[in-house]
């Protein structure tokens, strides 16, 4: 049996290459390695969040609260930094991840124990988290001059030619690659989303797996919260407003099926990079930035229509000769 349709990731990778070629025909500087590194660095937060969202979507859930989680964690660590400028960065990061994970766990518990649909839960927590930022900050911004230099410098520190922000994305990709392929949890995620009924037969607790997926997504949102706030050197209520949809869009473009069970780390990463390239290329090739929204919308529609064709299941085959020719 041969596969007629090449793997989704190859196609998406090809699409990105074609895109890069098109851009370079109008502006050669875009494909210079240093610029590509910049694009990657700029896309790093989206990549990290898309990986977290991927895990959630694979288990047939959705997390609309990631951007609010990111903003709340970012504000919290920024305020902690202002209050205690001496606190070392690893501690700050640990706090960010923990805070994010706790918020993810709140979503997870509501989905697991109270069986409230994930979209309702995260729609609610999304507004609640945002509101809490306003309450704790009194609506005030935390500006770069209030943050400690160590706090703002960390994501831009260059290691082996790349900033720490990029490394954070790369490490997350590697860890997720291992987690999804080589751990019991990673495989359970596919099982739960692909066939929850059968997952029960194999002794996998569906609700618990979904809970942990939310925790993972929340922890990554927390980590991104710190990276975001320190990179842009500012924290306020509305940072990353509406970013949750961009994250979901990256997953969808990357071939993660919203119905659960289908998707890959490579897909999510490429989906995020695709959006990142589009976003960074538009100003460079002198396409009005006003086109960006329509372009990413079309990309989503084309991607889902395409993925649906590629992923169409064959169903059962009864006729013997029909099976033979498949």
């Amino acid at each position, binding site marked *: 049996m041969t596969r007629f349709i090449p793997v989704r990731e190859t196609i998406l990778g090809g699409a990105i290459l074609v895109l890069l070629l098109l851009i370079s025909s109008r502006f050669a500087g875009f494909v210079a390695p240093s610029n590509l590194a910049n694009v990657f660095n700029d896309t790093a937060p989206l990549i990290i969040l898309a990986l977290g969202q991927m895990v959630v979507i694979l288990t047939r859930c959705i997390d609309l609260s990631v951007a609010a989680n990111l903003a709340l964690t970012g504000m919290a660590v920024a305020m902690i930094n202002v209050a205690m400028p001496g606190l070392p960065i690893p501690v700050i990061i640990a706090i960010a991840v923990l805070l994010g994970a706790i918020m993810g766990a709140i979503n997870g518990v509501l989905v697991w124990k109270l069986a409230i649909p994930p979209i309702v839960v995260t729609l609610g927590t999304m507004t609640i988290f945002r509101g809490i930022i306003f309450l704790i900050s009194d609506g005030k911004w935390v500006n770069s001059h209030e943050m400690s230099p160590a706090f703002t410098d960390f994501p831009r520190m260059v290691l082996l030619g790349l900033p720490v922000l990029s490394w954070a994305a790369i490490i997350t990709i590697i860890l997720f690659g291992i987690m999804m392929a080589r751990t019991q949890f990673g495989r359970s995620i*596919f099982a739960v989303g692909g066939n929850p009924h059968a997952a029960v037969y194999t002794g996998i607790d569906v609700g618990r797996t979904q809970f942990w997926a939310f925790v993972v997504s929340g922890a990554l949102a927390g980590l991104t919260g710190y990276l975001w706030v320190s990179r842009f050197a500012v924290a306020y209520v509305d940072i990353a407003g509406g970013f949750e949809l961009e994250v979901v869009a990256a997953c969808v473009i990357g071939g993660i099926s919203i119905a659960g069970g289908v998707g890959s780390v490579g897909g999510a990463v490429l989906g995020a990079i695709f959006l990142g390239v589009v976003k960074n290329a538009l100003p460079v090739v002198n396409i009005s930035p006003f086109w960006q929204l329509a372009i990413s919308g079309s990309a989503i529609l084309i991607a889902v229509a395409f993925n649906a064709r590629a992923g169409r299941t064959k169903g059962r085959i009864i006729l013997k000769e029909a099976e033979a020719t498949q």
Partner: protein
Amino acid sequence: MSTRTASPISPDVSPMVSMDMITKTFPGVKALDEVKLDLYPGQVTALVGENGAGKSTTVKILTGIYQPNGGTIRIDGDPISFASPNDAAKAGITAIHQETVLFDELSVAENIYIGHAPRTRFGLIDTAQMHRSAAKLLADIGAPFSSHTQLRDLGIANKHLVAIARALSVDARVVIMDEPTAALSHKEIEELYELVEALKSQGKAILFISHKFDEIFRIADRYTVFRDGAFVGDGRIDDISEGDLVTMMVGRSVDQIFPQSDHDIGDEVLKVVGYEHPTEFADINFSLNKGEILGFYGLVGAGRSEFMQALFGITKPSKGVCRVNGDIKVIRSPADAVSNGIVYVPEDRGKQGAVIGLPIFQNITLPSLSKTSRRGFLKLAEEFKLAREYSQRLDLRAASLDQDVGNLSGGNQQKVVIAKWLATQPQVIILDEPTKGIDIGSKAAVHEFMSELAAQGLSVIMVSSEIPEIIGMSDRVIVMRDGRIATELTKDELSPETLVRHAAGITPDGAAA
């Protein structure tokens, strides 16, 4: 007719697993009623019983998927209870379930090892080791595909081999096989038999569920019979004849149950010519007369339901013509079928039949809304009137007509679905496994009702996998095999052997005595 009771158990071996007084109820159904079942090391025990006898439910209890409402399970004489499938696996029980419990997005090796994959020193899944072991298992059962294949790329039979490999991947003491050969070809079945022999020689206890008597007599050492959720008897296979086993299974003579009504068979109502589908069925030709009950028999998976759904406008045939009362009718959707007087009572009641969540009366009036409404506006009084009329005709048992159908027992749900269609006053009613999962009382009611319908001039197509039902009810029978019509039999030609022979495609001399 004498019913055999348990024959004495040989004193030298004690059972490895024994279930005693196990009861399991579902809302509205008592699936198991104080049954017992013993499994012995190095022996194959066949569990036999009609559809819905409770065999699969027993398997699910033994593997920790369901928890029984009462009774005890012992392993080596010690009572044990399984809170989850993991507990059962730890106790050394593994199963090939009747439904495929596999994951399309994972590779074959992962499907085999999910939940108990080999680990490296760092706690990660050792994929290399996993694929090596999986390849060996696959070779043992003669599977013709690699462990790296994505499961979604496999056909049904090969998926079944994966399920078998999965069950063998744990070092289990008890291996359960729930209809393992239903989807397999002749060659694969032979290899499975060899495997069973090998497992036996390793001293494992094997529970084997099958509806095929030839294989039961070929590989089983012992038998246990359930009927309608109750234990009927057990013993050594050498001590019983096939005929006696059937009697134990069915527990009654066939003619007692099925109503003998005389109905006149009239003119041709429906004619199907050359129906064909790229993958599901081909070359279907038959005709149906007024007032006739036409049985469709076949082994599970023969493609009967798929064809019926094509006739009802759900799936699109690639070719074929359908005439109603002599006129060619194009049926593109169920709505078209209904307007041409063809209705379908599906086999999957929960998903396709009843609209669970809507009250009974709304289910009944759903396809007849145009009759109970005026210019698209509902008239509740009319709806209740219609619902009342048909629920009384079918002797529906319910607390009230505005009760959610989901709260009804399976039999009463089936009555609601039938009522829904009768209210549209159809010409042809297709009943797909109409008595599957229905208690014995309701079953008789459905049968009686079916012949009544025929007597009133309605044409009935009855798809059934139960031989007694087919023989007892049909005026004529079409047997399907692998998506084609294998033969057409008149009432006089009907016998269990002929039906099974045509359905399984066995030559007369190859069939069991």
